[in-house]
């Protein structure tokens, strides 16, 4: 089993039996997959050769650290975008230019665990400009530019440990948030070096609000709110009437620090934390916060120099809610809530208590009234706790087992994933009535409706992203790809249409009509705008230069040759930098660069771009390099040689391509 969300042996032991019980209770559920799939399912997901899918589906790779792009409804994999993990195929994280994207205060971090893609929004609706994604393990947020489908910036989150509750956006992407999953001791070294059992006194949480610059996509931390020590799980921004608020689910209000599966599941209710972010923004603007230690990197891809730029910040502006009443409230929520979702109207907040046998739906209007009336059941570590009954719109009774996440259609319906009973349950947000349920194969985690966490869902489909695959596809040994299922939600009943394998762990996803993304499409980089310091903008600029032990080769590619393609005078002990500029100015003509014995990776250089591979020759001889991306009928001729001589050699450093007009 891969990455189970619930590891309680008791629960899992009971799960199978309960699954059978549910089956027998719901006689209408199809018994076989064949019966579950309509006869016209194939035609409804078939996208004929050369035609395009209606939606882009951006799916996190989970433990792959990347983001995969699929087309819907076909489920075809279009691309895998390197984000938090190195990618030897493209050279991401290996080329000299891209290394900086993965720099942190703890040095170069080559991997992360990417969970939640979130599209940038305008007026509460995904706008097709960017896609954010969180890095869980070494807390970070990345921004992917949907013009290039490349990672355009990555910011490290200080005073955080496990950036799970992230990177959900406000309605105009003023901010994306980062809530720490693990609370930790913070401050100077002596404050951080404390016994783990002093959790209650010393461990604190934070939620950070990160501002992406609307023009450049550069990110900075606008402010960070210090919270009691709990685990933050997920979050969503308010919208419409609740615009200006942000809601975070928290568990482990027991403040346990060991045997968590038992000890953090003791209380009947944990919390949904409501943050008045407009107020926090105002406080920050008025200088009410305090700058506290919080060194972090903000990395940004400069698309003119084709290189990462890193800014290092020493501290962060922190707000203490105890000094600012009205900033934070807790709403009790049964039981270890996971998903925290706001319906399209912005009136209702749904907490999915993953250990609860019901789904609570909170009313924003009632929350405001309870705050106004000071209708509290007490406080938790100094933060006011509102009364459950006072803020509750109602409960969905017996929806299924293990509710995790909820997305919405445009017709007032909600779709909740049930991990333990492995199904999607459709219910009405107003009436709280369960309308339909379909099985998933197997143990669904997140689910996704196009636009389904925004103000204006496009609806049409719901996709299940599953944790267990088992028998869905031809077996491939102990390790299986994970699975996703596409269901139509156009009728009253959900209909299974398609099942497709995914890369990594398909954790969460977003989907957007392709028409909203394609107008920003970048086909190549203009060579005139290339400001890379080692660019060769034309073969005339190709050359080789020695700076001590460093040899810099200014190289170009075009179908189908390198210039220079002969280099001599490199010596053992040299560090050779191949700065390769792709002179092509047309779509879909990358060139590759690989050299024998390279201990890093290859380069894939897009048209108009310059990328650099460092190579340290290890032995004397003539070493070939070649293009790895089949580029033309003469691709197999696209090669070159470097002559490597002993350290004391007197061979002069030269680089050349023999001219066809040599006799002229």
């Amino acid at each position: 089993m891969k990455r189970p969300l619930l590891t309680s042996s008791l629960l899992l032991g009971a799960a199978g039996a309960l699954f059978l019980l549910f089956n027998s209770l719901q006689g209408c559920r199809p018994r076989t997959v064949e019966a579950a799939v309509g006869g016209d399912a194939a035609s409804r997901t078939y996208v004929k050769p050369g035609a395009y899918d209606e939606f882009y589906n951006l799916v996190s790779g989970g433990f792959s650290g990347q983001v995969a792009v699929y087309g819907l409804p076909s489920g075809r994999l279009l691309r895998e975008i390197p984000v938090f993990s190195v990618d030897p195929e493209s050279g991401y994280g290996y080329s000299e230019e891209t290394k900086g994207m993965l720099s942190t205060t703890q040095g170069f971090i080559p991997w992360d665990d990417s969970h939640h893609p979130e599209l940038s929004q305008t007026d509460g609706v995904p706008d097709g400009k960017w896609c954010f994604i969180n890095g869980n393990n070494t807390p970070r947020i990345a921004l992917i530019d949907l013009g290039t489908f490349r990672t355009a910036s990555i910011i490290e989150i200080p005073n955080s440990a496990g950036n799970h509750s992230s990177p959900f956006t406000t309605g105009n992407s003023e901010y994306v948030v980062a809530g720490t999953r693990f609370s930790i001791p913070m401050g100077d070294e002596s404050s951080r070096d404390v016994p783990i059992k002093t959790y209650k006194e010393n461990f604190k949480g934070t939620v950070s609000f990160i501002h992406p610059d609307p023009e450049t996509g550069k990110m900075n931390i606008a402010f960070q709110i210090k919270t009691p020590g709990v685990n933050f799980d997920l979050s969503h921004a308010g919208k419409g009437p609740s615009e200006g608020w942000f809601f975070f689910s928290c568990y482990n209000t027991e403040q346990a620090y060991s045997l968590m599966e038992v000890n953090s599941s003791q209380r009947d209710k944990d919390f949904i934390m409501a943050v008045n972010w407009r107020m926090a923004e105002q406080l920050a603007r008025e200088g009410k916060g305090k700058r506290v230690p919080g060194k972090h990197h903000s990395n940004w891809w400069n698309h003119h120099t084709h290189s990462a730029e890193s800014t290092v910040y020493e501290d962060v502006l922190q707000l203490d809610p105890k000094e600012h009443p009205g900033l934070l409230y807790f709403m009790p929520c049964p039981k270890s809530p996971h998903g925290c979702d706001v319906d399209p109207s912005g009136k209702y907040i749904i907490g999915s208590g993953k250990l609860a046998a019901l789904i609570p739906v909170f009313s924003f209007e009632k929350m405001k009234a309870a705050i106004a009336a000071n209708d509290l059941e007490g406080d938790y570590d100094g933060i006011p706790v509102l009364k459950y009954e006072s803020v509750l719109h109602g409960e969905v009774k017996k929806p299924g087992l293990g509710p995790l996440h909820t997305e919405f259609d445009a017709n007032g319906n909600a779709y909740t994933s049930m991990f333990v009973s492995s199904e999607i349950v459709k219910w009405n947000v107003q009436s709280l009535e369960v309308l339909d349920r379909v099985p998933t194969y197997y143990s669904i985690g997140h689910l996704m409706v196009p636009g389904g966490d925004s103000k204006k869902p496009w609806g049409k489909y719901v996709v299940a992203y599953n944790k267990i695959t088992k028998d869905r596809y031809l077996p491939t040994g102990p390790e299986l790809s994970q699975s996703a299922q596409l269901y139509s939600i156009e009728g009253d009943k959900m209909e299974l249409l398609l099942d497709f394998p995914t890369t990594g762990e398909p954790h969460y996803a977003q989907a957007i009509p392709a028409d909203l993304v394609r107008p920003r499409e970048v086909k190549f980089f203009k060579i005139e705008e290339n400001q890379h310091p080692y660019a060769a903008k034309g073969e005339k600029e190709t050359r080789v230069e020695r700076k001590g032990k460093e040899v810099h080769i200014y190289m170009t590619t075009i179908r189908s040759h390198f210039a220079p393609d002969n280099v001599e005078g490199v010596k053992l002990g040299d560090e050779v930098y191949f700065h390769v500029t792709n002179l092509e100015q047309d779509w879909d003509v990358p060139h590759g660069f690989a050299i024998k014995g390279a201990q890093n990776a290859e380069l894939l250089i897009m048209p108009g771009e310059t990328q650099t591979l460092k190579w340290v020759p290890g032995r004397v001889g003539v070493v070939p390099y070649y293009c790895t991306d089949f580029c033309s009928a003469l691709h197999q001729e696209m090669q070159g040689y470097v002559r490597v001589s002993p350290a004391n050699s007197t061979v002069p450093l030269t680089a050349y391509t023999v001219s066809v007009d040599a006799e002229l």
Partner: protein
Amino acid sequence: MNNAQARKSISRLVVWGMVLTMVACGGSEKRTTPPGTTAPAVPEPNATTPAKELYTAADLALADVDQGMAAKGKATSEMKCTACHSMGENRIVGPGWKGITTKREPAWIMNMIVHTDAMLETDPEAQKMLEECLVRMPNQNLSHDEAREVLEYMRTL
């Protein structure tokens, strides 16, 4: 068909070529596009070179060589063209440019630079070059003015 006739027919050929492509449903039409480079079934939204705008001789009034334009054309070609075209007579990937303007009509040259794909798909002379070079000439995305300056530079060679 000689060069002149071919040039005169380009516009019509392109239009008919597009119509044929659209109506070809598994019939016996001979495809002129090399395998693997067929036009997408769905038109690209920002395709830059509608084929009907091909240059004709009437579009290009050539006077004496404008040295200022030629200098600009030289700079552009050194960035975008000379990796494949020598300034001599020999072929690197594409033909050498020495004397090229005496061998080819100016409009044909302009079309190869600006409307590269349309030419490779419809113009018999362009296709003959492709058979010889075996590498499709890339569209290097020169504007009209840049292409015109490159043409002026060619005239100095």
